[in-house]
């Protein structure tokens, strides 16, 4: 779901860049004066998001999907923190390895960071239990895949119908794995480090 440069039309690039920039600006402002105790946690969260996005799973048709790691960050640290962490990981991937484009960073940030951080956190708050991630994960995967499909469709890169279903369905399947990993990590943290589940969620 890391859209490379050259895939999206100018209009889609502009709209997603503006949206992504707005979320990035607000999240930076909110986290600017974070206490020093919180910064290593944000760094660890960025490392987690960066690392899991490198691990891909085969999807039907020879394609590949990967975990995003944002749901865990949103549940532990809050939506603005998860969004900023996701942006950092995406920027790093694009700059260092051309994994996702620089011009399409806004689109990738919205698909992976913004949707998963804010919607994930909103759904998590409804029932903050580890098992909730099993349901939230596939739903977030589906919605992220759908957003990606819409952007590709609007840019003339994806035929409607089967392409939409294939992309969103594959991301929902990846979301199942994401939900399972998140649920097991949250379960383990609640036993081993319960304090991490009581952090201020920004």
């Amino acid at each position, binding site marked *: *779901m*890391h*859209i*490379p*440069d*050259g*895939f999206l039309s100018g209009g889609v690039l502009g709209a997603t860049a503006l949206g992504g920039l707005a979320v990035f600006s607000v999240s930076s402002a909110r986290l600017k004066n*974070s*206490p*020093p105790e919180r*910064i*290593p946690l*944000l*760094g660890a969260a*960025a*490392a987690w998001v*960066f*690392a899991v*996005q*490198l*691990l*891909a799973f*085969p*999807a039907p*048709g*020879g*394609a*590949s*999907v*990967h975990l995003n790691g944002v749901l865990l960050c949103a549940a532990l640290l809050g939506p603005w923190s998860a969004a900023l962490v996701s942006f*950092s*990981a995406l920027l*790093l*991937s694009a700059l*260092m*390895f*051309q*994994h996702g484009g620089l011009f399409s960073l806004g689109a990738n940030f919205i*698909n992976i960071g913004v949707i998963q951080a804010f919607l994930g956190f909103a759904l998590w708050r409804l029932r903050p239990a580890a098992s909730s991630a099993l349901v939230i994960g596939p739903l977030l995967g589906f919605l992220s*895949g759908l957003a*990606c*499909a819409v952007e*590709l469709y609007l840019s003339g*890169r*994806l035929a409607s119908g089967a*392409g939409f279903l*294939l*992309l969103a369905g*594959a*991301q929902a399947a990846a979301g199942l794995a994401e939900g399972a990993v998140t649920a097991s990590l949250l379960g383990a943290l609640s036993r081993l480090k319960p304090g991490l589940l009581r952090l201020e969620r920004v």
Partner: protein
Amino acid sequence: MKLFYAVLLLSFLAAGLCAHGVSGRAISGGAGLEALYADGEPLSFGEVKVYAPGDAAGPFQRGYTDRNGRFLFSPDSDGRWRLEINDGMGHGLVREVLVKKGAVISSGGPAVIPVPVKLLSGLGVIALLSGLWLHLAARRRLKAAGKA
């Protein structure tokens, strides 16, 4: 004379029948790309569009990568050929292949970096940036404490 016309008619018919025949010959070489995911897995059966130099209107060729993520085509002119590979999942790449005097000069792509190297270098940069941020935040707190 009748025999002559009959032979002539038959030869026309035979030529007509042969007009739709297809012959083939093996060719070698060409230009192309190997598309790999970030973890080194090949981008198999991805959709490929090839655009000729200076002709962005429509693709010169369409096709798919093979199971090893490779795609080859035969450029018919010199210049920068643009290849777009799309796996239909939002992943893909756009690369230029430079062809000069019929030979491929460069594919313009980055070197393939092993995942452990990517992981270590990325985590190193994140640790560096987090440490820098932590240093600045701690200094700000110390200053504030000093003023108080």
